[in-house]
């Protein structure tokens, strides 16, 4: 008997090692990744896949803290202008070549090259140079102290030069990184298949042999698929579907505070939105608690310019007087601005994200109570993007992505001429604070600056921030070790096991 038990234990142990990378993790996502070039793409669907294949110098963990990835340690000079990174030894790309400091410099140069057209480039505008100061040491020199620099480095994805050059400069269809999984197959509109990287630098990871991203456009189909066990993980479950999956046996619903937010954007180059009193009136007319209930099934927090998830930075909404819903006050402000009977305006939004079009509908009803009549146009997404990009709107409702540093939320959105300042907002005082927030390095001082900014922007800024939802994912019970990240990334699939 005793011998038999020993044998059994031995068998289990050997199973444990022999099948170290076992099983295929089935993930269901709503849209196919549109291109895989980590320096070019912006879509969430692309990052969900790319995040498994490539590494940055640093990465963000579930607590929104920076952790080493390809860089193991770093030092900052006293003037805050020189950063020296020690790089991880023994890392190889999926093609077998060893990773060195030159790859970091090459990747940085590729991002900064205007020919690449990388949306990441503006994050590194304050960097004067990046130099390989050793085989595994990189030195960045900045023009001015730049507080968000480290958090921006999570976007410095390291790619191998020879692969870029062999593919005519584009990485949209190939992917060779240093990450836990390797790209095996893309079947358009069907799936993207990744296999475990046997030489991954974190020993014992990844724990599954394959990850398959199934492209499943309908939310109800993804939900049906997780009920039946066809899929193991659905990241980003919408609030209504989450509600239906709450008490399903064999399925666990996980939620974290989202960094993304729904918003009502106002074009301040058009009347009446050029009048700060009108913008304030709109905030008073909005009942955020009602939206949280109606659209998010209670699973959201009304928030200001920063996510409540950034606990160190976000100013409590109790400090924004206009967040207390008050239609009478709204009418009063409108009357002061010369619109005693309210006004008519257009609102453009899109239908591919349920939360967005729902927020638009509730906002329309709420603003109507204050005399603001919005003509809602639920445009096809392509048309929406174009109107957005060209500032061709009175107002719009959308979902904006977040960041781990306040600068990532605020700078390009509110600075005069900023790349996502489609509102044409311009306020010298805001510009000054935004610059100050970037170049100040002392944490307490920064918190103070961003507190000022949030209070200034919340009520009379070009955006009425609506709510920060709970980001849900659904996971079957045989999945162990999955972590939901507030950034919507799936970086920790490498730690996931299938039982």
């Amino acid at each position, binding site marked *: 008997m005793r011998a038999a038990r020993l044998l059994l234990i031995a068998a289990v142990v050997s199973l444990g090692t022999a099948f170290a990378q076992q099983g295929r993790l089935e993930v269901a996502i709503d849209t196919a990744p549109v291109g895989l070039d980590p320096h070019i793409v912006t879509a969430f669907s692309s990052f969900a896949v790319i995040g498994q294949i490539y590494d940055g110098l640093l990465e963000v963990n579930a607590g929104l803290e920076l952790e080493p990835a390809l860089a193991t340690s770093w030092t900052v000079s006293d003037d805050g202008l020189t950063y020296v990174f020690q790089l991880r030894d023994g890392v190889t790309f999926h093609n077998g070549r060893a990773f060195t400091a030159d790859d970091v410099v090459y990747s940085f140069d590729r991002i900064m090259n205007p020919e690449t057209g990388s949306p990441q*480039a503006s994050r590194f505008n304050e960097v004067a140079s990046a130099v390989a100061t050793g085989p595994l040491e990189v030195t960045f020199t900045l023009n001015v102290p730049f507080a968000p620099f480290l958090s921006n480095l999570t976007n410095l994805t390291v790619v191998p030069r020879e692969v870029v050059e062999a593919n005519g400069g584009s990485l949209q*269809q190939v992917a060779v990184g240093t990450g836990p999984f390797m790209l095996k197959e893309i079947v*358009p*509109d069907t799936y993207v298949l990744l296999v475990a990287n046997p030489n991954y630098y974190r020993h014992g990871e990844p724990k599954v042999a394959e990850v398959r991203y199934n492209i499943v456009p*309908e939310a109800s*189909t993804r939900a049906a698929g997780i009920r*039946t*066990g066809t899929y193991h993980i659905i990241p980003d479950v919408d609030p209504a579907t989450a509600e239906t999956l709450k008490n399903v046996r064999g399925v666990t619903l996980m939620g974290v505070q989202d960094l993304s937010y729904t918003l009502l954007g106002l074009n301040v180059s058009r009347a009446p939105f050029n009048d700060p009193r009108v913008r304030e009136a709109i905030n008073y007319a909005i009942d955020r608690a009602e939206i949280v209930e109606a659209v998010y099934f209670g699973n959201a927090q009304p928030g200001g310019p920063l996510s409540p998830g950034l606990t160190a930075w976000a100013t409590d909404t109790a400090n924004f007087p206009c967040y207390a819903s008050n239609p009478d006050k709204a009418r009063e402000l409108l009357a002061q601005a010369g619109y005693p009977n309210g006004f008519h305006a257009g609102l453009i939004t899109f239908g591919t994200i349920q939360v967005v079009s729902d927020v638009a509908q509730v906002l329309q009803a709420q603003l109507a109570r204050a005399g603001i009549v919005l003509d809602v146009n639920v445009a096809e997404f*392509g048309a929406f993007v*174009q109107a957005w990009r060209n500032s061709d709107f009175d107002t719009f409702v959308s979902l904006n992505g977040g960041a781990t540093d306040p600068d990532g939320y605020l700078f390009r959105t509110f600075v005069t001429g900023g790349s996502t300042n489609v509102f044409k907002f311009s306020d010298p005082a805001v510009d000054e604070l935004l610059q100050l927030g970037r170049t100040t390095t002392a944490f307490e001082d920064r918190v103070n600056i961003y507190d000022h900014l949030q209070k200034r922007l919340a009520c009379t800024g070009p955006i009425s921030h609506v709510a920060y939802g709970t980001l849900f994912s659904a996971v079957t019970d045989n999945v162990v070790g999955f972590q939901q990240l507030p950034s919507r990334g799936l970086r920790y699939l490498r730690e996931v096991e299938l039982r």
Partner: protein
Amino acid sequence: MFQYTLRRLLDLVFVLLGVSVLVFLMVRFIPGDAVAIMLGANTDITPERVDALRRQIGLDLPVYEQYWNWLTSALRGDLGTSIWTGTPVSQEILARLPATFEITFLALVLALVLSFPLGVLAARARGTSGDVVVRVIAIIGLTLPSFWVGVLLLYFFSIYLPAWPAIGYVPFTSDPWGNLARVALPTVAVSLPMVAGLTRILRSSLLEVLSSDYVRTARAKGVGERGMLYKHALRNAMIPMVTVIGVQLGYLLSGVVVIEQVFAIPGVGRLMVGAINERNYPLLQGVVLIVTGVFVLINLLVDLTYAWIDPRVEYS
């Protein structure tokens, strides 16, 4: 008949040419811009970069030049390359055709198999409760949107028959049973309206034929009711059926476009919807041209069959 066929083939060329012009213009009338969408919503792209991309795709040329370039290479079998993936458009379409064709074909077969007995039953039992039942079922089938039926079927199977592989698609050649299990639900969902439509058409045209002069004459001569139905009426009643099948295939394919979204099937429909959303001009043009070409061919076959069944149609 030969001359007629030849002339119709010639017409086909003109139709396809007309289709190509319309497809091309249509795609450009859709608001939104491939370049704007390619570059995504949250980017810091310079106008120079936009222009460079525009040149690369050929969008900087005058429209008629773009059309001419596209048409001439299409005639050489080159439909261009997909903006996103860089793979040849023809290759992408070929990869998607099997799933769409399989479901469309199976749905057509299912519709014919079910509607013939139902239509005959209703016509024979005209005015009785059997007739009413068939007609009511037909109307219900017609009025249920296939995406709704699809979602209902999916919910039902995921809750009560979780072992049934209902989502996705595997090729028949690699897993015959898996293939059939997966296409079964979408096939049923899209064929319902066609079953209903064909049943109604067959019923009414059967009734019409049965009341026509020559059938009345035959009846007066003492030909039995059953013999009448099968020998005389059915063949003539098939004429409107055949005309309608071509039209109905159009509805069927539209249904498949939607149902592919519901069941996550990688077919032409999703390729098309995706291409519209991405403003993937070469891909969209290619898909629409190919799908349309197939349609025109089917319609031609329908017309030829029609001429063959109904000798009264002159070939002039």
